[in-house]
């Protein structure tokens, strides 16, 4: 009954979305006030209805109602409650319901918080309405989450065990909040292209929304990476897997958009590019979904390889992208020409940032689709993997990181490096000194690695300079840090975050230690200056799995005498196995231990030392924090 109600309100939501998408168009000329009022109310109503549907599906999962097809296929009574709830979006239908919920949430939030009550706002909500219509139709016609099974099965098939993880419970909602958030950029771009009645203020009004989307996407990707690190059994944090790339592309484009919108807002130039970038970013967000859901790429993320769904999503992707690009093409001649500007200025450096980020986006795009295209053209099967991306990204990162710190330090309009000379030399000297220290103590694998270390350190010290410069006017009250303006921290934190992440990636990939042993009972194992003893194995019972748990004991160092317990889990309901690495954090990195299969009367143990690997996710957190400071500033001003 609850499920039928859920289905019913979802149909209602589609009707409401259609009203939101169509009615204001007819009223925009004659009665703009009424048009906006209808659009806003429809946004609220659409959100409430979808929320009800989402609650209904969650109820089905929590109650383990196996008469619902998605619950049967993705849940099990023996599953802990948190994973029953996370199971709502741990499958295709439910995750699409989450997607439309977030679309509606952004629409409703915009309707609530928009500062201007003009026809521009109405047009933004119209675009959001169309998105609602498209995705609700997709959900209802190809992926109904409320489909029943008759007769109802007695038990469910369970959720893939590697998805039964707290990080993965939060990963999809964060990622979707990011992807869908960029629909606001798209809606703003379309609204700006269809009328100039906002006085060219769209860039300023768009920024909080793309900041929000960007923060969510940053966190979502980082969480996915961290999950892969501890769950997949050897400590890799990025695989350049097509699905990862699908999320990286909108992130790179969105980062470029964030910066170009700043130029569009402050200097009234780069506006054409910013509009195009807004459309591209959302198109990439959609193609991320398309690539993942359609089965074009097979991976752990592909819940359903259903050609009908693939075609429908392709139509949505093609429709919205095409609409955006065609409108852009038609309106381009009428857009005001971009005002030229000096190369050595903040906007000049922000343009450089955009060129590099655009190149990075195209590289990821090309690397992801090239094998598919080549295969489709019958020109052979090739693979494009991590070695390709590393080979392209490493040389791209160096000039990017070298130029980046100059941007925030230079003034708008006509900047000059001269007054900064001494400070820049100081930062460069510090970076060179630390790099020398690293090379002397750890050696150097290649010139490229040394250059990357130097560039990352320069970026870090450059962010420090930027912070110092921004805080200089408040020198007298640095102690009362809570009275300092939030905005002073935004760019320095985000840029330092990138530096910290780069350092983490370099350290973790360059200095990693690894050992594989077939260990006998009480055998001693040495890795990265740590000694451990293998104490044997026992069987344990989890809530919905059985596990083999190994025990190792630290023989030396700060952790001396403590035990670690790597596990191999066997999930009976899902008939699958996972490894649970034992990870110990200390000052210089992670000890990462995994228990493997038997080898005669011995047991294979795999141990890694991942130096400073946590810097990677710490860097992502810093970036998101920097974004949050910028967002807080913006909201405070509005």
């Amino acid at each position, binding site marked *: 009954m609850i499920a039928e109600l859920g289905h019913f309100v979802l149909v209602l939501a589609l009707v409401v979305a259609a009203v939101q998408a169509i009615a204001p168009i007819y009223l925009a000329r004659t009665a703009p006030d009424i048009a906006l009022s209808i659009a806003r109310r429809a946004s609220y109503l659409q959100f409430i209805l979808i929320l009800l549907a989402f609650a209904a599906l969650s109820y089905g999962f929590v109650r383990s109602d196996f008469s619902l097809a998605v619950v049967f296929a993705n849940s099990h009574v023996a599953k802990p409650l948190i994973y029953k709830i996370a199971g709502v979006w741990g499958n295709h239908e439910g995750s699409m319901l989450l997607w439309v919920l977030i679309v509606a949430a952004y629409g409703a939030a915009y309707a609530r918080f928009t500062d201007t009550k003009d026809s521009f706002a109405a047009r933004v909500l119209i675009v959001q309405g169309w998105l609602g219509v498209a995705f609700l139709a997709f959900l209802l016609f190809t992926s109904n989450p409320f489909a029943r099974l008759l007769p109802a099965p007695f038990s469910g098939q369970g959720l893939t065990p590697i998805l039964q993880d707290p990080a993965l419970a939060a990963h999809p909602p964060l990622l979707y909040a990011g992807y869908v958030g960029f629909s606001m950029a798209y809606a703003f771009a379309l609204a700006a292209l269809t009328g100039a009645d906002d006085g060219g203020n769209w860039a300023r009004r768009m920024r909080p929304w793309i900041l929000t989307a960007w923060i969510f996407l940053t966190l979502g990707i980082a969480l996915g990476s961290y999950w892969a690190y501890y769950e997949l059994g050897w400590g890799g944090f990025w695989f350049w897997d097509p699905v990862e790339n699908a999320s990286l592309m909108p992130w790179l484009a969105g980062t470029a958009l964030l910066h170009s919108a700043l130029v569009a807002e402050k200097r009234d130039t780069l506006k054409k590019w910013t509009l195009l970038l807004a459309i591209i970013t959302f198109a990439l967000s959609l193609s991320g979904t398309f690539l993942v859901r359609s089965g074009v790429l097979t991976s752990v993320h592909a819940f359903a390889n259903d050609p009908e769904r693939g075609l429908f999503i392709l139509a949505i992707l093609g429709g919205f992208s095409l609409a955006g690009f065609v409108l852009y093409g038609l309106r381009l001649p009428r857009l005001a020409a971009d005002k030229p500007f000096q190369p050595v200025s903040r906007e000049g450096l922000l343009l450089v940032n955009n060129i590099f980020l655009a*190149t990075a986006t195209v590289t990821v795009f090309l690397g992801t689709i090239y094998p598919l295209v080549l295969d489709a053209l019958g020109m*052979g099967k090739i693979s494009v993997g991590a070695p*390709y991306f590393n080979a392209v990204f490493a040389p791209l990162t160096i000039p990017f990181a070298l130029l980046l710190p100059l941007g925030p330090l230079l003034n708008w309009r006509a900047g000059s490096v001269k007054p900064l000379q001494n400070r820049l030399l100081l930062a460069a000297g510090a970076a060179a000194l630390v790099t020398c220290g690293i090379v002397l103590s750890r050696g150097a694998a290649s010139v490229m690695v040394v250059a990357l270390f130097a560039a990352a350190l320069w970026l870090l010290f450059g962010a420090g300079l930027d912070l110092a410069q921004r805080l200089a006017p408040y020198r007298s009250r640095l102690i009362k840090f809570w009275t300092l303006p939030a905005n002073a921290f935004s760019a320095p934190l985000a840029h330092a975050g990138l530096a910290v992440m780069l350092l983490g990636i370099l350290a973790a990939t360059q200095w990693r230690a690894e050992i594989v042993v077939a260990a006998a009972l009480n055998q001693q194992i040495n890795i990265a200056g740590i000694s451990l003893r293998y104490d044997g194995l026992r069987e344990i019972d989890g809530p919905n799995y059985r596990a083999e748990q190994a025990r190792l004991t630290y023989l030396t160092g700060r952790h001396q005498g403590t035990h670690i317990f790597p596990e191999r889990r*066997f999930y009976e309901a899902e*008939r*699958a*196995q*996972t490894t649970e690495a034992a990870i110990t954090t200390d000052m210089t990195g992670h000890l990462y231990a995994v228990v493997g299969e038997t*080898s005669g009367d011995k047991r294979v143990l795999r141990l890694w030392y991942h130096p400073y690997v946590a810097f990677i996710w710490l860097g992502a957190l810093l970036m998101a924090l920097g974004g949050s400071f910028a967002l807080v500033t913006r909201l405070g001003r509005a």
Partner: protein
Amino acid sequence: MMRSVWIMLIMLVALAPAQSLDPGEALADPMLETRARALSQELRCMVCQNQSIDDSDAPLARDLRVFVRARLQAGDSDAAIRDAVVERYGEFALFRPRLAPHTIALWGMPIFILLCGGFLAWRLVGKSSETSS
């Protein structure tokens, strides 16, 4: 009884986690082993999803790891080993595609985009020096 159930479960593994090297596989010579690891990371495991033979625990990947190390010990160059692998499995086995007519766009596009962006930026900026002078 329990043991046989477990063995059955292990055989039904749908998503076996990556587990790389087995004990005793690594070469004694650290220089050769470093080269072996670097090479292994560039070679695709043909029966896995987007895993290199260095990351995979599939038997085929293990065979290839052993093959790579044997050839290294025999004194072959990296290029010769790559060629031998391509001869067996085709270009699909290389994670870093070779520069060839059909991969020119792949390798050249990043540079092309960078140059295009630079050119467009130069034009925009160039206008500004005209107007100011």
